[in-house]
């Protein structure tokens, strides 16, 4: 009995961590599908979002919900401007230019955050900090549960947005066939900037959800490496795939930490990725028809 509870505990913790990986992966995928750019600064945008939330909630004393919402809006606006001012200029340039640019932006964001907020870890109080929920005998940390529930809610919202709203469908359209979207009079550039805004907002939400579990610091964005694995496992192009890939990585990582000697936990994401590339290189959820260009 003890063992079953322990295993469930690991699954919940792993799924929670995996949701964070998945949310960052989702940002990778949204931007990649639209613009064929891989944004290596995605994790650092999460870090910035976390610090903004910290400032609003811990420094300015805002209510958690108001501060969180405002932080998401601010980070999304930042993502919009990032595309409109910087990244739009490199569309059509060779891939490595884009890679170098987003890597460089990541460095700048970390330096900027260090100067603004310092290099110490910080945190803020959330309604989920140090609380537990008793789910039919299983004691689960409210912090981990809030991550899972928050991610699921966000997925529902995004699903409705992308499939049921005019703007959401237009985002899909512009991602699938940019030229045709121009012909339809869809404002493609603005739509791509909005996709950056959504990705940044989702990253900020990931940072906020993560904050009761782990502190906010300048280097927290490095977990994006695992998100990258999650996105590839999910098929790099599939939104549900990136989340499921994230959760898979998170759970496997927890079990590796429990069963295997120290050190293994850190490499499991890459081991899962390697296995995936060998067994099913197109990822779990590769779309059947190739992208038409």
């Amino acid at each position, binding site marked *: 009995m003890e063992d079953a509870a322990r295993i469930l505990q690991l699954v919940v913790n792993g799924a929670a961590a995996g949701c964070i990986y998945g949310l960052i992966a989702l940002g990778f995928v949204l931007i990649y599908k639209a613009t064929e750019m891989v944004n290596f600064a995605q994790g650092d945008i999460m870090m910035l979002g976390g610090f903004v939330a910290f400032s609003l909630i811990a420094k300015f004393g805002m209510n958690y919900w108001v501060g969180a919402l405002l932080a998401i809006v601010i980070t999304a606006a930042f993502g919009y401007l990032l595309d409109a001012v910087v990244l739009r200029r490199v569309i059509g340039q060779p891939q490595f230019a884009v890679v170098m640019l987003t890597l460089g932006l990541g460095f700048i964001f970390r330096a900027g955050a260090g100067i603004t907020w310092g290099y110490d870890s910080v945190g803020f109080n959330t309604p989920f900090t140090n609380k537990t929920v008793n789910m039919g005998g299983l004691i689960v940390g409210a912090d981990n549960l809030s991550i899972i529930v928050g991610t699921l809610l966000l997925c529902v919202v995004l699903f409705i947005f992308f499939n049921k709203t005019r703007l959401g*469908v*237009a985002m*899909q359209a512009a991602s*699938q066939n940019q030229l*045709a979207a121009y*012909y*339809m*009079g869809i404002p493609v550039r603005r739509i791509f900037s909005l996709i950056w805004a959504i990705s940044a907002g989702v990253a900020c939400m990931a940072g906020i959800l993560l904050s009761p579990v782990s502190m906010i610091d300048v280097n927290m964005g490095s977990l994006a490496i695992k998100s990258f694995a999650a996105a590839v496992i999910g098929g790099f192009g599939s939104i549900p795939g990136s989340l499921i890939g994230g959760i898979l990585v998170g759970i496997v990582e927890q079990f590796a930490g429990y069963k295997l000697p120290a050190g293994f936990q850190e490499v499991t994401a890459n081991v899962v990725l390697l296995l995936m590339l060998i067994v099913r290189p197109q990822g779990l959820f590769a779309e059947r*028809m190739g992208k038409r260009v």
Partner: protein
Amino acid sequence: MSESLLRVDSIETFYGPIQAIRGISLDVAPGQIVTVLGANGAGKTTVLRTISGVLDPERGRVMFEGKDIARMPPDQVMQLGICHVPEGRETFPFLTVRENLMMGAYTRRDSAGIASDLELCFNYFPRLQERQHQRAGLLSGGEQQMLAISRALMGKPRLLLLDEPSLGLSPLLVQQIFSIIRRINTEQKVAILLVEQNAAIALRTADFGYVLEVGRIVAADDCKTLMARDDIREFYLGQKEAGERGVRRWKKKRMWN
């Protein structure tokens, strides 16, 4: 000819250093079908892209209802009433047929008008109604062409730009689609600028025709007159079964950026 709906006035268009259009002028009157014939690479697609604003001409004017629309972005051109059915259909493969059609009406806000135009499209192409919830990428070539035409109709055009609608379709399907193009023209009073390599069907469908060769207009006349000309018969009607068609496709989607 002051009653032109569209007047293209000596445009020159480049792809980087390559000049694709070397001074072309043409007119489309309201309600007219005008065709532009030309071999592969003559510059037909480039003319249409210049009109719809995806490419900007280096020189020259594009007048639509008396207004210069050259150098206007495509979404504004489209809102003025010019809708483009691109070469190779260019549907949104992962969206359903219905969603594709709704994207054609993206710039419109009149939901009643949009609903009635959707009915109209389904009327012209009942196949699309049957398949409205399927992904566009799963349609056959002919159905995708029907979808591309309907998607443009959803923009409520006064001028429809059609880029090689016969490309890759069976002769029977070509006949069907062109007869519907004619119906759309007369019933909806939409003027059509039709670009084709299939001169036989284009000359039978259109009222007036231009012949394009490497970026220049080399002939312009009523379609009946053109059809009777010896050189046209030899070069455009004689070899209409040329196997080259459909080989070259629009590849690099951002090159015009």
